[in-house]
């Protein structure tokens, strides 16, 4: 039985095929120095990274904390950029990513007949990631994505989270008790009376 729970927007993009999705990562790759892309010197990852792999990583970070109609793609592109930039200078990260992707695609091909990024339903891709979720490769991307969204002030307004308030005088005059759908709390007089004043 196939459970179709995918968001239409994702479906459309998936139908375009992996290589065509490379355009989503081009701007990210442009921000990372050329050596990481074309391969140079003895950087193991640099030699193996291509657009498809970057696109797969981008799909992964979108699948880890998916907010398809909610956050702009640029949030995820920035996560990817951070990871790739680290891979550029840290061989350990480069190897982790290269081998992690290889493993993920092997599992995906075995189970679904196609590489990870070509798996058409979120539930199936999530299932693949659940298998590898205790590994360092996945957790690296999970924490990078978490940081790129939930502790990123640029993403906060979309969640209605307003961040630092002391410089604005707190919320005492800015809506800490502004809900009109709830009964009001006690008045100051009532609160004074409650403590015997």
């Amino acid at each position, binding site marked *: 039985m196939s459970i179709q729970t995918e968001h239409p927007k994702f479906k459309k993009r998936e139908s375009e095929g992996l290589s065509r999705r490379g355009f989503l990562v081009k701007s990210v790759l442009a921000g990372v120095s050329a050596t990481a892309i074309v391969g140079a010197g003895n950087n193991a990852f640099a030699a193996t990274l291509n657009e498809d792999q970057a696109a797969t990583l981008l799909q992964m970070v979108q699948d880890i904390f998916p907010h398809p109609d909610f956050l702009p793609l640029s949030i995820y592109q920035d996560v990817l950029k951070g990871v790739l930039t680290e891979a550029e200078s840290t061989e350990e990260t480069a190897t982790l990513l290269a081998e992690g992707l290889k493993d993920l695609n092997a599992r995906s091909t075995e189970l679904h007949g196609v590489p990870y990024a070509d798996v058409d339903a979120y539930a199936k891709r999530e299932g693949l990631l659940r298998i590898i979720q205790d590994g360092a490769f996945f957790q690296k991307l999970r924490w990078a994505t978490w940081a790129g969204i939930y502790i990123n002030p640029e993403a906060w307004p979309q*969640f209605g989270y307003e961040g630092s308030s002391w410089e604005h005088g707190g919320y005492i005059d800015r809506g800490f008790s502004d809900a009109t*759908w*709830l009964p009001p709390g006690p008045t100051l007089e009532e609160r004074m009376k409650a403590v015997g004043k």
Partner: protein
Amino acid sequence: MTAKFDQDDDSVVVIIGSGAGGGTLANELAQKGISSVVLEAGGVFENDDIENDEWGMFLKLTDFDKRYSAGGWHGAQNHPTLPNWLVKGLGGSTVHWAGVSLRFHEHEFKMQTVNGDIQDANMADWPITLEELEPYYDRAEIKMGVTGKATGMPHLPWSNDFRVLAEGARRVGYTKIESGPMAINSVDRDGRPACQQIGFCMQGCKIGAKWSTDITEIPAAVETGKCEVRTNCMVLQIEHDESGKATGVVYADADGNQQRQAARVVAVAGNSIETPRLLLNSASSMFPDGLANSSGQVGKNYMVHVNGGVYSEMPERVHIHRGTQVAGIVADEVPNNPERGFIGGYHLEKLTLGLPVMSLFLKRGNGAWGRDLAQALERYDYLSGVYIVGEDLPQEQNGITLHDTEKDQHGLPVPIVSRTPHNNDERMLKHAYGVMDKIHDAMDAKTTHHLAKYPASHNMGTARMHEDPARGVVNKWGQTHDIPNLFISDGSVFTTSGAANPTLTIVALVIRQAEYIAQEMNANNI
């Protein structure tokens, strides 16, 4: 006037830690003219260091010294090196506490008498009663500036988030619903301003509306000229003489060099992990099982409160992040009523989590990711919820032990913090989740999330108070049964946990202890 005491000066009281216990003790003694040296393991957080940044402050304030989670709770897997959420720094965990200042109820001092022996629990009565502690609760509330009758300060105004809880609680028939008592000024008082509903109470109060010892007790103590505070000084060992009397402490200074400070009295206030650890690490040929441990109870009976969270998506926006983090408490389930299937009771406390912490605590562990979590977080602004704080039963198996091989930066064994919930705890938590489901359903909640136990900020019991020296570490004054001039001045002395956040009781006990120390010093008994 800043005091400076000689390291050989054996007339001083050495206080280890500067939080709710240590900071208060320093000031109480100073006001009585008794000199003390406070040794604080951490540094100083200046006002500029305090930011409204949940994650940034977590990294800045949290005590990340190596310790391990163990036992049968999920944190052994999901929070393997963060069993507790505590602060290492001047002011200790009063910098990040939320300000909830509840008193214990009468039955909570005599849980064994009320309920009899409980299988697999190390039940005991406190050697003191509520009646004995009440005058000290009053003094603690006046000192700290707790909203309520003792100070005459009204409780804080109700935030949206509390209005959700209060109305839901009212609809299911609850009546004990208040926005206090909180140690947060609701009016300008004692040189500190009224709360501006900034939020981020647990990241340190930017304006000082919340009581914390770094801005109240410690400066007041130093002002007397009777108290010297040495920060970045980690006490490694308590020393004693041939008669078994404490003589002073060995500590590592900011540069890592070992120093000694002589003492007439030593008071340990390092919180319930570091306090027993220090006693155990101070083992000697005379006290091979650790100092003050003839009962074998040092490091045992560790309690953290039955705790968890319930957050639900409401039909309208709540703006949970606006306003004080925890000014809202429902107390109807506090009485001891075994008909519910468990003994002891619990509070429901409105609790704001910012988006960063919500995203970490809604689900836990390696599997905390995916569409369900992301969709729940997209409704962040509609979430409302509580922290459950319930009586946790003492068990000998729960406690602090020393790692066999792994050492910290000072060469001392790192602590292993073990927690396995008692069946009573599990039944209480289940009940509390059920009650919150009803409360949120009454508010037409769309989805409800049950949050698993948190790394513990309420740590109690590891040097417990008991009348019988064979069953507890300290007497009713917090004085160790084995060493008359060695005192414990923090939550470690709790015999049982009650359902109240521990800080107010720690402060009340320490005010009382300071009187006793002064009396015994004057009488030359110590």
